[in-house]
């Protein structure tokens, strides 16, 4: 399979990337790790006139502490995330999810920014980032704006990214010491999440002071399970309470169905995985 012809642009820095994004005619697609875009192009399901390869834009790289948030460059690859010491300390949930993505070669190429901008309903990383209350930093020639990830993800393969904007980084609040778990049921063929649940618990004095649960694979796009969080926040998470919370993990969601899993089954899986993730994040396993 071979892509249609396209014009290839490789900006050397952020300014050039943003300038080209602003000026290019026709459809422009940003190429990061390429593991979502290139397969689509090869199958001719995507045929952009211009491909903007941001791999060498230094400003999109790097993981660093910026005050009370962790700044993660959009070009950060999964394998970097999986081994980064800052991530391990302040956002281990992201590393857990990154380790379950695809296979080693995919993790070597796939990027944080690419995954978030592609907004695949079954991608792992968006769920973990949502649970972390991540914000996205969007840059254009006009300036920069920040948006909570939950407002950025609009639906399947759909985001709030404007045509002339580039996702530069994500910012995540520091969650050192919080219990974290990502439970995933991978599709046996694709490795994508049939369902995946990320759980984050700030346990203090025997109670869950804060609970974040995010789900992927189940709805049109990754989402926060608000009903579950509400049931659990402030409580001591015994088995019954976890079960109660987990049972509401797909509350109000129009659940996906495909050849591998019906909506019924997928909802059930999400509940099972939520319970497992919560138990692990709470520390009862």
């Amino acid at each position, binding site marked *: 399979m071979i892509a249609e012809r396209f014009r290839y642009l490789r900006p050397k820095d952020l300014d*050039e990337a943003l300038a080209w994004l602003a000026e290019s005619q026709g459809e422009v697609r940003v190429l990061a790790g*390429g593991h979502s875009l290139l397969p689509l192009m090869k199958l001719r399901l995507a045929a952009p006139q211009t491909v903007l390869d941001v791999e060498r834009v230094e400003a999109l790289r790097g993981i660093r502490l910026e005050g009370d948030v962790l700044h993660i460059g959009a070009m950060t690859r999964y394998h970097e995330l999986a081994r980064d010491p800052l991530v391990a300390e302040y956002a281990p949930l992201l590393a857990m999810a990154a380790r379950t993505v695809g296979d080693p070669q995919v993790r*070597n190429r796939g990027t944080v920014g690419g995954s978030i901008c592609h907004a695949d309903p079954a991608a792992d990383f968006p769920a973990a980032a949502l649970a972390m209350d991540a914000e996205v930093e969007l840059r254009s020639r006009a300036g920069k704006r920040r948006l909570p990830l939950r407002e950025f993800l609009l639906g399947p393969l759909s985001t709030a990214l404007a045509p002339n904007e580039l996702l530069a980084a994500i910012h995540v609040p520091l969650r050192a010491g919080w219990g974290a778990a990502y439970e995933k049921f991978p599709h046996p063929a694709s490795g994508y999440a049939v369902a995946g649940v990320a759980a984050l618990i700030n346990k203090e004095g025997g109670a869950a002071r804060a609970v974040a649960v995010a789900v992927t694979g189940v709805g049109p796009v990754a989402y926060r399970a608000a009903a579950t969080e509400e049931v659990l926040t402030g409580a001591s998470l015994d088995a019954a309470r976890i079960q109660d919370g987990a049972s509401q993990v797909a509350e109000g969601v129009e659940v996906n169905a495909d050849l591998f899993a019906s909506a019924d089954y997928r909802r059930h899986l999400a509940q099972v995985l939520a319970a497992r993730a919560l138990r692990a994040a709470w520390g009862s396993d």
Partner: protein
Amino acid sequence: MALAEEMVKIAVTVNGKRYEDTVEPRWLLAHWLRDRLGLTGTHIGCDTSQCGVCTVVLNGRAVKSCTVLAVQADGGEVLTVEGLARDGKLHPVQEAFREAHGLQCGFCTPGAQMLAYALLEENPHPTEAEIREALDGILCRCTGYQHIVRAIELAAERKEAKA
């Protein structure tokens, strides 16, 4: 340097040798290696980036060369199966694949070996479970994977013995 071209000049070091070429941006690294450089050891087994048969090492990490454009490799270093052996001596991974009967038809073997090579560079003593997880990155229809797993274990032992 910024690039904005219909045809793009690239320079890639492959198996230690520098190649300069002018390519269409849509050329896949796999096709470039095979059709332009004649390095046909890298095979292509699917078109959805699933099978891993086309795996090569790019800048030290295993990648699927069917999902990397040749232009993305510009300025980089590629190691293919043809570059594994040095000075006429097989790499321990190659020796082990032969010793442990880690291949049958041999079509996925270059990809499997490159994946194994990269795994051992990063994790010189993987457990069996770690090896099987890493093999998520390769589909083999012949071996049932068992002798590939054994080959990688054996390669790890031999690399250590040599070190």
